[in-house]
């Protein structure tokens, strides 16, 4: 059961509560809200890929998969070689110049150990960020979308409803 943060970007209003919550927890924000001129906003963080390229190329064993499925990180083993950044298709791992190691999202390992949600998810006022067993999150989403389709069909707006999905 892989636990992930799912991005329901349609709910995002670009308030950056996630960035500030992440910064409060880790010193630097590891999630960023990207804004586009049409008011479209997307919060984006590490995808914790199932076949994580960063994990495969890390020469020092600093990156590892933890029990919740997060691609986590041991700062004591990192040598700051940037291989993970090279391999990552999203540009997620960043260099922490002060400590000369890499820095990336670990889904708030310390908070999870205390039974808390990742900080960004805890904060997100619109529930654009959801945390949990990813297939459960997706089944819920699918259920909602199907329910919307049904009610749109009942109102005779099927085609329109399909377009806004």
């Amino acid at each position, binding site marked *: 059961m892989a636990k992930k943060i799912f991005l329901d970007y349609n709910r995002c209003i670009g*308030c950056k509560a996630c960035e500030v919550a992440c910064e409060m927890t880790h010193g630097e924000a590891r999630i960023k809200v990207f804004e586009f001129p049409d*008011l479209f906003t997307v919060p984006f963080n590490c995808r914790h890929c199932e076949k994580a390229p960063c994990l495969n190329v890390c020469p020092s064993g600093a990156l590892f998969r933890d029990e919740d499925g997060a691609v986590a990180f041991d700062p004591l083993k990192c040598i700051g070689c940037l291989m993970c950044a090279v391999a990552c298709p999203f540009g997620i791992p960043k260099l922490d110049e002060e400590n000369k190691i890499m820095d990336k999202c670990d889904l708030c390992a310390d908070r999870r150990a205390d039974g808390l949600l990742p900080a960004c998810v805890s904060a997100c006022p619109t*529930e*654009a960020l959801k945390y949990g067993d990813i297939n459960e999150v997706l089944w819920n989403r699918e259920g909602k979308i199907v329910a919307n389709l049904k009610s749109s069909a009942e109102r005779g707006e099927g085609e329109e409803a399909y377009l806004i999905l």
Partner: protein
Amino acid sequence: MTSQSVKLEVMNVAEKLVPVVCPWCSVGCRFYAVSVNGYIRRVEFDYDHPKIPNMGKLCPKGVASYQFINSPDRLKRPLKRVGDRGEGKFEEISWEEAYRIIAKKIEEIKETYGPEALAFLGSEKITFEENYLVHKFSKAVGTNNLDFPGRYCQYSNSPARTKVFGSGAATNPFEDIAKAELVLIWGHNPAETAPVMFGQYIEKAVIDNGVEMVVIDPRSTRGHKYASLHLKPYPGTDLAVALAMLNVIIGEDLYDKEFVQERTVGFEELKEAVKDYSPEWAEKVSGVPAEDIRKVARLIAGKKTAFLVNEGMNQHVNGFNLALAIADIIAITGNIGKEGVWSGVFPGAQCGFCAAMTGIAPNKLPTGKLVTDEAARAEVERLWGFPIPDWLGLDLTSMIREMGNKIRMMYIIGGNITKSAPNSAWVREQLKKLDFLVVQDIFLTETAKYADIVLPAAAWFEKTGTAISAERRVQRTYKAAEAPGEAKPDWLILVELAKELGLGEYFKYEHPDEVLREINNVIPLFKGATPEYLAEHPEGCFFPCTEPGEGTKILFKNGFKTSDGRAHLTAVEWMEPPETPDGEYPLWLTNFRLVGHWHTVTMTEESPSLQKRWPEEYVMINPADARRFNVRDGDLVKIETRRGEVITRAAVTDHIREGVIAMPWHWNVNFLTLEETHPVTKMAELKAVAARISRVEE
């Protein structure tokens, strides 16, 4: 393990989770301040209490709200001015000396000019208990010159709704927004000013329930992407749109006849008053297509509507008329006194209601009754034990106008009027004319720089007290940190100063709980909001809460708070804004708020996580206007009005309609606004003035 964490472990320091109410907007979010040895290290989300309005969630200001209280720039000792007014040169003095100087000045001015030369400001940023004490203190020294910066906030909608419904407060809890059939956002930007309310209630309606949303605003706001219709009136012309909606709803026979018949008076006069305000007329005045006005009017008439209306309506000289027209629309469509609707004032601050409900106004008693009402005065005199002046005091703008004339001394608590009041240059010149100014605040604000004595106050998390949210929720917040240096909570400063003035017998309080118990006794609406009840119920109670455990979630289910229990429909006429664009100043200038800043940035600019994300002001200009005035995106530009000028960067964007420019209000925009006020409400023109823009060579 770092040396810091080793040290903490050796000392065996425990983190303490102190339940608090958020210090910014009026949604009333709760969380825990994580306190270590009287110092807040971070916030923790409250997912323990499902009945709280935020269900654990916070916006960026909420998450960062522990930062400003740890700022090295906090005021730590009382200060006495040694430089010129406004220069910011002070020397530190002791509390004893500060109290002695202030008490002596109060006595001197009372003797020379009479108590009517003294003026006090309460604050939307201090607690309910503290506002109550500011009120009591001002009356004890003998003046009714009492107001608060909320004069520039809800003082269009609040008096208008009081006239029509008998009370300005929100009719329903936020959960009813999620049950509405139409969400109307008019001159309001809740996605930025109240993100938790937007996410937890508006999005539930719009995204999950598929409810339609309509936005009326000259700008495209953050939540605008969910709207099916966007009406863009010129600033200050929304009144024309509202009058035309009344015209359509009545003219097309769409109003709720049963409701109008049974629960309102004045319908015929209203019908007569709006019969000529056609949508075509409104289109000429406001620039909103007549057909769009018709569409929205028909939607409102046919659906249970949540009316989310705020400063875009309030902060105009004609805002009172607009608020009356909207109240009329709400009444004749029956969108009040039931589930699934929402309307009411939406204070900008966590404690706007704390000032309003303790009667912080030049004409009120703490009970909400008028100072000119002899019986009501006698009742409070009996409870307080000293005589209360019977004359009408001055509102905030009139106080500023009379500085150095009728007003000789002012005592400002937690207010930054050099930036929040209209026409900042004028305000600063007026402040110099005072004989004596006391400012009590947590930072040396621009306004404090004009003070003779500055008193260092404890910040929100450094004291226990009560807050009241926009949905009328009364909640307790607790002390989580020690104030820096010698700073003291506002309530304690007033208690000690009263003692110095020989008024100690009326201010015998050793804890805010004692003040709240007195409020329970003096203000009947809050009888049940006792310290004990609120301690056991973190989610608080909805006022009127007349007994512990009893609150009122929905107002006006059976009758209105008016003399006859009916809604008093009020005939409204078109009123020109005091200033409109002309050849010399061809553009409308308005302003808006950013999610990462709050009011005049005194606290948010001391919050590094916010300041770095929202670093500075700018001006929005439509591409067509940008071409017309030869301005490119990112250019340094000068914005001028007849009051002053501000230099800033241009943001060329479609998110503002042609003919209008807009700036965030947090920084300098009030150098450009107008101090003219409405004859009844005294609301100034803070949102629609004539301006021009020009490029500045770099």
